[in-house]
């Protein structure tokens, strides 16, 4: 398969996706649109975490912190001035935030940018740590961000949070950014820079002695990952329309982590599928929390029972499918062509019999 043909197929794929989104945005019910939106946002979050954890091998639990930075930045910049006057009850909002109201796209990008800057600042000291220690340090960072958000009411409105954030996020935005995220990260990991990142994952000392600058590449991966986490956070804020510090507690990072592990460390296709799988299952499992009866016994109402299902799913994946739901499979047109050819040859062989 040559390059021209691949590009054509990609173009057709993008047009099809756009048509689907148009269809969904106009004809699907609100509930379904919301789940799809969450799905796309989780694609952004999970793919960006996978860049850091799956491809660079750096175990970070700070994703919620970067999302919080993105979410607050975006929300504060798109909140209408009149709304700001209304919701800041504890202390009035500081200038110039009090009079700022800018377009959604710029606010989103700024959210990503601030998250990225935070990543550089935190990454330079913290990425010297390895393994679990890095996880703990980044977890601490995310908690610090949350505590700060709780304690500067003149900026974040403290524990009351921000209400009435304009609902700009629709499928075009979320899917659009999901496509950009996947595109950028796919391009990155298949470049020589990506190879250097994977070298770090495989063996730091070896990578270093063949000339890979550890600090630079780790911070780069961390920063790009945080940038997209920030954008994901901004999209999420404008989808939920209400955010407060509790939105960005640890469980949010763990949700993204579940998606990454089920999708497969270092597997983009699997991560995308598992992002949707996660959100759809999460929604359609709601009824089981209302209590149900099996043949011999009845289960009472247990809020949070859905997450138990995920814990079990996670355990099963870790035990039986360490490489994620798709194993070694990674989507590419070439791979699809290979599978098609092998199917064709198999059926033709069958015909001869």
């Amino acid at each position: 398969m040559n390059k021209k043909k691949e590009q054509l197929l990609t173009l057709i794929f993008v047009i099809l996706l756009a048509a689907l989104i148009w269809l969904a945005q106009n004809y699907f019910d609100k509930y379904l649109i919301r789940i799809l939106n969450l799905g796309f946002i989780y694609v952004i979050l999970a793919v960006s975490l996978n860049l850091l954890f799956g491809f660079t091998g750096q175990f970070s639990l700070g994703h919620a912190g970067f999302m919080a930075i993105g979410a607050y930045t975006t929300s504060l910049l798109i909140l209408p001035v009149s709304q700001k006057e209304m919701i800041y009850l504890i202390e009035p909002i500081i200038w110039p935030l009090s009079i700022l109201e800018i377009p959604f796209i710029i606010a989103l990008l700024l959210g990503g940018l601030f998250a990225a800057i935070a990543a550089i600042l935190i990454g330079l000291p913290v990425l010297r740590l390895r393994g679990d220690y890095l996880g703990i340090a980044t977890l601490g960072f995310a908690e610090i961000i949350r505590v700060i958000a709780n304690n500067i009411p003149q900026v974040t409105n403290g524990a009351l949070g921000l209400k009435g954030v304009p609902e700009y996020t629709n499928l075009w935005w979320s899917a659009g950014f999901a496509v950009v995220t996947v595109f950028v990260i796919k391009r990155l990991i298949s470049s020589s820079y990506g190879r250097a990142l994977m070298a770090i994952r495989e063996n730091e000392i070896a990578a270093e002695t063949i000339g890979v600058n550890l600090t630079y590449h780790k911070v780069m991966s961390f920063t790009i990952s945080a940038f997209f986490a920030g954008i994901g956070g901004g999209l999420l804020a404008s989808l939920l329309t209400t955010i407060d510090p509790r939105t960005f507690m640890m469980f949010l990072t763990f949700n993204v982590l579940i998606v990454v592990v089920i999708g497969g460390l270092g597997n983009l296709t699997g991560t995308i599928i598992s992002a949707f799988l996660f959100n759809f299952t999460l929604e359609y499992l709601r009824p089981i929390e209302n209590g149900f009866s099996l043949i011999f016994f009845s289960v009472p109402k247990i809020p949070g029972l859905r997450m138990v299902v995920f814990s079990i799913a996670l355990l099963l994946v870790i035990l039986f499918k360490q490489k994620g739901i798709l194993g070694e499979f990674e989507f590419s047109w070439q791979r699809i062509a290979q599978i098609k050819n092998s199917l064709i040859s198999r059926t033709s062989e069958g015909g001869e019999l």
Partner: protein
Amino acid sequence: MTLLKLNNVTMRFGGLTAVDSFKLALKKGEILGLIGPNGAGKTTVFNMITGIYSPTKNSIYFRDENITGLKPDIIAKKGIARTFQNIRLLDNLTVLDNVMIGVHLHLKSSLFSAILRLPGYVREEKSLYTKSINLLERVELGDFAYEKAGSLPYGKQRKLEIARALATNPELLLLDEPAAGMNPQESQELVNFIRQLRDQFNVTIFLIEHDMKVVMGLCERILVLDYGVTIAEGIPQEIQNNPEVIKAYLGVDVVNA
């Protein structure tokens, strides 16, 4: 011309002196061997040269430039490459990728142009690919280019690690026990292979080895280290008959008897 110079370099870990006043002047183009009993500090010498450790005392000069305390990736860029005693390949990447990462350090394209696949990057990536394939062909690993490095047989993994080191285009190649775990026939092949390397790739070679056949057959000059102290230096015949060396390896009685 002296390529690498160590001036009485000392390395201490707390109270333990791993290498004591190690002196070395490596001439361009030679093959120098470093031998000594286990724990003599041989690998520590390599780790100091490649920047994994920074010596406690005194300095290391590469092409008359002080490289003491520089980070390993900088030292690699300056032209020193190495292999490891326990093979450190990037197991889950292909053989080709392993070598291409070695070439990566000479890349000039920015991250931005890599993501957008700008013409400059595409050109560089292409030449990177050709260089890497060529290198693999030259070390007879061309047939395995798309296999995972971790799945190669042991001998080929050793070879690949050397190829990866060569990919960084080094002037000085440090080999840490290249013949470890090889049978006599394999190690004889290795001797020929390393000799070829020196001539084909124009590298100076400094190697640690326990297999005396390899050391004696390959090295033009040998240094012997025992408990961090250099106890002998000379051509292979001198080393073989040096009582100090025999004592270090076999104990006192043998010398007296």
